[in-house]
């Protein structure tokens, strides 16, 4: 008897959460275009999120390029296709692996940070204090953070992709004796606008998803420290899931668009 009920309850709460999130997104867009604008806080958040994720993105991107090239090299050698390495690596990284990996890294680094920060502000009544002082906390905390991640993630992904290609070029240079000039000439020959543009556009959506889930979970955090932990944790879990869903939709739409 209890199982169908709990399933029903979970289904209800799932749809209730979808509804809440829809209202949250609607409020974000409403507040985004209404005065006063919190430019200073937006810049501060952009700096925080961009600057503090820089090292992580550089290290991740570099190792991604190294490992991906090292792993792919033997397979391509079997077919005598080492010369395809720069184009294969650059297309894979720029179109898919770079954006997804960097976004996942940022979901862990930025999304959980936002969830924990806003969640702890909620449970310690700092958000109430903000509201009582006549400042709109949604605009100050939520709008600025979502916007900051949406704007900064594409830049971080571009940087991560570039560093990954440098890592790959180093492996190619050391293992295959390919000069850096030749490697990057082949990379730029292989990459077209149709590879770079959709991949960059989807990173804006990735950024939006990271900011949205982090702020949503934090803003609606339940009371207590357990609630803060849950907000932080579920922000990462739901964002990761959402990133793959967005990625699937983006690839699907891009495919339709370019086969027309």
């Amino acid at each position, binding site marked *: 008897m209890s199982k169908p009920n709990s399933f029903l309850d979970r289904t209800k709460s799932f749809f209730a959460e979808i509804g809440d999130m829809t209202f949250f997104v609607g409020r974000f867009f409403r507040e985004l275009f209404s005065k006063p604008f919190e430019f200073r806080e937006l810049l501060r958040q952009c700096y925080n999120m961009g600057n503090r994720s820089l090292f992580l993105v550089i290290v991740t991107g570099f190792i991604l390029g190294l490992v991906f090239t090292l792993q792919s090299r033997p397979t391509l050698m079997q077919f005598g296709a080492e010369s395809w390495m720069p184009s294969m690596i650059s297309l894979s990284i720029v179109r898919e692996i770079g954006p997804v990996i960097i976004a996942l890294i940022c979901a862990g680094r930025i999304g959980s940070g936002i969830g924990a920060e806003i969640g702890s*502000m909620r449970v*310690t009544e700092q958000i*109430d*204090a*903000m*509201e009582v002082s*006549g*400042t709109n906390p949604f605009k100050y905390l939520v709008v600025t953070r979502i916007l900051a991640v949406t704007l900064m993630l594409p830049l971080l992904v571009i940087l991560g992709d570039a560093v990954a290609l440098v890592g790959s070029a180093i492996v190619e240079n050391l293992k295959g004796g390919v000069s850096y000039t030749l490697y990057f000439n082949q990379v730029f020959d292989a990459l077209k606008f149709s590879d770079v543009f959709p991949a960059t556009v989807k990173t804006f959506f990735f950024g939006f998803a990271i900011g949205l889930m982090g702020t949503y979970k934090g803003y609606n955090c339940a009371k207590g420290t357990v609630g803060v932990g849950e907000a932080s944790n579920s922000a990462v879990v739901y964002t990761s899931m959402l990133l793959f869903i967005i990625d699937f939709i983006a690839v699907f739409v891009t495919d339709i668009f370019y086969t027309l």
Partner: protein
Amino acid sequence: MNSEENKKPVLELKDIKKSFGDNHVLKGFSLTLHEGENLVIMGKSGSGKSVMVKCIVGLIQPDSGSIRIKDQDIITMGQKELDFLRTEIGYLFQGSALYDSMTVRENLEFPLRRHKDKIKDFKGTEASVHEALKSVGLLDAIDRMPAELSGGMQRRVALARALILKPKIIMYDEPTTGLDPITANEIIQLMRSIQKEYNTSSLIITHDVDCARVISNRMILLVDGINYAEGTFEELSNSNDPQTRAFFKN
């Protein structure tokens, strides 16, 4: 009592009801706070004191009843008007609620960002911050982070922040809870001196009998979501009603 009643009411709650699901927290609570008055609300934990204060500042919407601040109904007013009216109310939160990512200076500057035009003879942000911190005796802590301050110091900074817009009404939610008796007494004295200096009306929620004795002009006991008893400290503490007397036993 009579002198208080002759003064103009600055805050009026009439028949406030608020439920959370099946939990009926406020079942028709009413109060009137007069100009320059210190009104203490006492009640057991979970009796709805904090909910009532949050209704007053618009953080929680009551199910029914009316809340009038300076003759304006806050329940029906728009967000902009409410934000403006909130500058007339200082709120000292139970846990201080200082912004922990900001310094003491930034905490105090925060309410001024939008509402400094509201302050008469505004002398600049820096001067206002200094004045507020000076009134709580913490000017030295201006560039420190909240985490570097003791509980009592945090409460004083929170009080300075509540004062920075020179409000006419101050709400104190358990101002001495969690503090040692000496620090609690310092906070009580500070509340008294602030009332004299800024000529504010205060609504104080407390369990602390000493605090109520020192600071109250009038008291209301909130029991089961309604006004159970009302009067001066002396009247209530000498009451023959066992439930009323129970609040004053140490």
